[in-house]
Structures are given as C-alpha cells and as structure tokens.
C-alpha cells in the first residue's frame, strides 16, 4: 500500500484534472478554477486525514468489541460463527485506519504538500448540508403527510430557503413536480407511494 501513490479522483480535490475542451469534450458549466494550495490547506488536509484514520480505527474498535461480545466468533464444531467475519473485517479496518493516520501524519509526500489537497469551503458545505437536512425532514414527513404533501414541503424549502427563487416559471415547475410524479408513478405505473397517516 504505497501511500505516496495517492492521486485526486473527485471534484472535491483541488488538483482535480479538468478535461480538455474540444468538440468531443466540452467544458462543464461552472467548473471551479484550480488555485495553488496554501500552507493552511496542506495542514488542514493532513489533519483531516489523520482524524479520519483515527475515527475509522476507533469506530472499528468499537465494532470489534461488539462482534466479540455479542456474536459467537466460532460455532459449536469450531466452524466460523456469525461474528467471525465482522470481527475479521473490523480488525482490518483498524489497521487501515491507523495506516491512513500514520501515512498522513509522517509520510513525506503529505508533509511536503505533494499529496492531493482537499478543499473545504464553509459556505458550500453549509448549503449542501442544508439540502440534506431538508431531505431528512422530508423523510420524516413522508409517513404522516404522504408523498405529495411531503414533497411539496421539500419543494417549498428548496424554493424559499435554499435557492431563494424569484423566477415564477421555475417555482411553478417545482411545485408541479410532486403531483406530476404522483400521477406518473402511482396512477400510470401503479407504483405504490406513501399515502400519509394523517389523512385517515
């Protein structure tokens, strides 16, 4: 496991390769421009990876404890029991988590800032988490309100809080999405959707 072979693979990484423009490969809209990482970015990336490694190891340690105490690791005849594989996997994850922390703590590439740098923008993360929270609220409302009403609540949160939309056609389109989906799936395709307990 060569730590120094790590390369960026997602858009979250500031060194993410941007595809060449061309007729077959036009640039995607709103692509972020790459900015040279600062010393603070490098340190933050290292700390995040060290924390991630330790977190993986700690959670895995807890899972190992639960596997050993709650599940039989071996069966009556010495065969592998229900806890055997979870314990084995938790052990591997402890090792991998610690390895990640060590590599990012002491690895030469991480210390010299040659490893890929992660970017964290507080406002962007807050926006994403806002939508996630709206989605979590939506999931909680599905059972009492049913699909259409709960979906309208989600759409309203997106329109008013997340996007602060002013375009009337867009607002109407979003508000019409839930009934349109209800008609398509529930009525046309006979796919059962949550009905809502409050309406009974």
């Amino acid at each position: 496991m060569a730590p120094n072979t790590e390369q960026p693979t997602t858009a979250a990484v500031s060194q993410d390769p941007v595809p060449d423009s061309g007729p077959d490969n036009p640039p995607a809209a709103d692509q972020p421009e790459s900015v040279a990482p600062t010393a603070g970015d490098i340190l933050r990336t290292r700390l995040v990876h060290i924390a991630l490694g330790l977190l993986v190891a700690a959670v895995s340690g807890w899972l190992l404890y639960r596997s050993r105490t709650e599940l039989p690791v071996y069966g009556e005849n010495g065969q592998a029991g229900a806890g055997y594989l979870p314990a084995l996997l938790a052990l591997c994850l402890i090792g991998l988590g610690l390895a990640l922390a060590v590599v990012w703590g002491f690895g030469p590439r991480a210390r010299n800032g040659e490893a890929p740098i992660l970017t964290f923008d507080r406002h962007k993360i807050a926006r994403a988490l806002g939508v996630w929270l709206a989605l979590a609220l939506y999931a909680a409302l599905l059972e009492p309100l049913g699909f259409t009403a709960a979906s309208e609540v989600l759409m309203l949160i997106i329109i008013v809080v997340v996007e602060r939309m002013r375009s009337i056609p867009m607002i109407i389109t979003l508000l019409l999405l839930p009934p349109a989906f209800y008609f398509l799936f529930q009525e046309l395709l006979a796919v059962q959707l949550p009905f809502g307990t409050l309406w009974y």
Partner: protein
Amino acid sequence: MDAINGLLSGFATAITPTNVLWLVVGCLMGTLVGILPGLGPPATISILLPLATGFDPATGLIMMAGIYYGAKYGGSTTSILMNIPGESASVVTCLDGYEMAKQGRAGKALGIAAIASFVAGTIGVIGLTFLAPIVADIAVSFGPPEYSALMIFALLLVIMLAGDSMLKGFISMFIGLFLATIGTDLFSGEQRFTGGQIELAGGIEFIALSIGIFAIGEVLVNIEQKTQKPLFTVPSKLRELMPSGKDIRDSSGSMVQGGIVGFFIGVLPGAGSTVASFVSYIIAKRTSKNRKNFGKGAIEGVAAPEAANNSETGGAMIPLLTMGIPGSGTGAILLGALVLYGLNPGPLLFHEHSDVVWPIIASMYLGNIALLVMNLPMVPFFAKLLNTPYQVLYPGILLVAVIGTFSVNFSIFDVGLLIVFGLLGYVMRKLDIPAAPLVLAFVLGPIAENSIRQSLLLSDNSPMIYLQRPISAVLIGLAVLLLLVLTLGGKSRKVREQMIDAEV
C-alpha cells in the same frame, strides 16, 4: 447444424407481426419502467408478467425478452444521466457514463450503451446457440470452493476501481463488506448489528445504499455552488449527440471483450451481471491505450460493462434452460414463467419443446435489434434532459431517488437509510474516498461469505480445499498474482516513471 436449423426455425416462428408487435411493446415498457431506480429487470418483469402470460408461450416469452432487455437499457439511462444506478450491475456504468454526461457527452454514452448492448447481446445469443452443452458441463463443476475463489478474485479486482489511492480504496471496500454483514446470519440465524430493527433483518437494502451514495451524494456536491445554469453542457447539434465512427471504433474491442466475458460469467449461477460488468470494466481498463481516462469519462468504460451486462443474459439462459437453475432474480422469474406455461426446463427441454425454446433464443436476438432501433433515436431526447437548469433537475432527482427506494420494499425506513447513505456519499466525495469499491464489495460480500463458509464446512474447516480443486486453485493463484501486481506493480511503475522523468 441442429443448432442452426433450430435457430432458423425459431426465427421463422418469432418473426410474425403479432410477435414483433409484442416484442416492441415489451421493449418500450421495459425501458420506461426500467428507468425508475429500484425497479431493475426482475421487478419489471414481475410487474409486467401478468400481461405476458395472457399470450401463447412463444409470444409471452418473446414479450418478456423485450421487457428484460428494455429494463436493462432503462437502468443504464439513469446511471449515465443522473448517476443513479437502478441495479447493482449499473454501478460500473456510472463511473464513466456520468463523467461523460458531465462533459456534455451523455448522448454518446447512451448511444454506445445501446450499441454495446446490441453487439454483446449478439455474442451472448451465438454463445447460447452453439456452446450451451459444453459450457453447462463446466458450470456444473462450480461448487462453493470455486465460487469463493472467484469472489476473492473479484473482491481484489474491486480495488482496481479505487483509482490510485489504494489505502482509501481498501477502507472503502472493507466498509462495504462490513455493511454487508448487517442482517440475519444465514448459517446460524443470529442477528448481526440490526439494533433490533426488523427492517434490517434482511440486511441493508442495496438500492438505498447505492442511490444514496451515488445519486444523493452527487447532488449534494453539485449544489454546493449556487447556479441557475444547466450543470451539464449538452451539444445542440444532433450529430454531436450520437456516438461518432471513432467512438464506435475506439470501443469496439471493449464491446467484444465485454460480450465474451459477460457470457461466460453469466453461465455461473449466482455470479450475475454485477460481477460480469465490473470484471469486464477492469479488463477494459487494463488493456486500453486510454486507461488514464477510465473513471474520467472513457467511452470504453461505458461500452465494456454495458456489453457484459447484456451478454450475461445469454450465458444465464444456459443453466436455466438446460438444468433449470436460475442464475439470477430475473432467471428465477423466467423459470416461473416457463413452469407457468407447462414447460419444465432441463436437458430434455430442447428435444421436447424445441418449438418454444428456439423462438425464445431467436427472440433474444430480435429483442436486441428492437432495442437498438427504438432507443438510438431516443438518445438525443434523453441527453437533452440534462439541458434543464440544475435548480429544477436536482429536486426531480431527489424525488426519483426517494420513489425508487421506497418502491422496492414500500418502506419509509429504507428512505431513511437513503438519506443516511446520501450523507456518507457526500462525505466520501469531500474526503476523496472512492465510492465504487464500497458499493461493489457490498454486493459481493454476502456471496463471498456464504461460499467461503460453505467450503469450510465441506472441508472440516481446512482451507486446503481451495488448493485441492483445480478451478479454485487456479483462481486463488490468479488472486495472489493480482495482489502482487497491485502492491508491487504501482511501485515498479513509479520507478519507471521517475526514470523517464530523469531522462527527460
């Protein structure tokens, strides 16, 4: 020659106006229903089965072939356009298909998926026609040790989807394997990490996990930046929406390779289209001149898994028709349909009911043609969907994701899991942890665990059973070789690159 005569007579029976009409209807309905995530081919065929059973056996089974192929293609559409894998076999298509969509090449990806499906479907049907007896004999010799060796090999292949970050790839894979252990242990009946939740007794629902990690995670990353523009660039010219001659030439090798690999893996009951699609993807990645672009929008990265996913059907029909062993959920439903029609799959099926079997095989080929003819013209329409402003598109994706997840078990709990895995997918993207190893390990984990534990029961807990059986010994040898290549290959490549840099 018997096979050729049988196939020709099958075509003669299958190509009637009525059969062709229902084949086209089946393809259309399969595509439409298959687009909905969660409703993969097995669920789609189940829903539409009552329609098909109203006809005579040949017509009904021909319609089901159309539904099956249509559903498979429908699944790849959402994978490419929205990063929503409708079923486990479509996970690999997301890797490059969605990247192509982000680069404004969704039409090309959808087009190549249809063409690859057609080419590989043809390979699958040819294999089914001429190799059925030979391949069936090999498949019978696959017991638990061979399966576990195959799964160990497959799990090591999963790591090759990790990009260059091997450590994070391994962490992702092991998390996927651990998540797969949640639920009831099939050997002892013990509940593992269910927390007393009855909904978790059957394990975590795959659709909730995959849609959460892929689709919701992607939406959360995309909406970080507020924009009123469409997120994706879609070319306005029709010519640019379809795959060019160069695209087809570039991916032809991957299509043929995927077709052959998919067919042989399809023959093995239980291995299924997921293993077929990602083994084929890995082979394409390792053998392509364009390997650096895999995972970043390589057209071969769409052609290979889609081809394997499709030709797997031909392979899966061999154990189903010759031995009555369904290799997948869809196979089990097709088996039910055959029995419903009074046909008993087995060695004598080809002799006793050749009037039905050969039309089924012929209809699989016709299904491929119908799918290509119907779906290629629809490609620009699907690709243009991405022209929608993202502010409107992402709420739609969220609703489709919730409907798709809920519709599998009609469970709000699964929707909750979807939200949780959505956050996990977002965090993984932010921390640059590859998601594909987690999702694929989640699919392969239970198959691997069951076959390993069965093997150890057979051998009185002796791991030597893997070396005593030739097929498993070869597979274990290949796995060891692969592990060496994975750990040492990277270092040797780095040394080679450093030497080249030094020379420059």
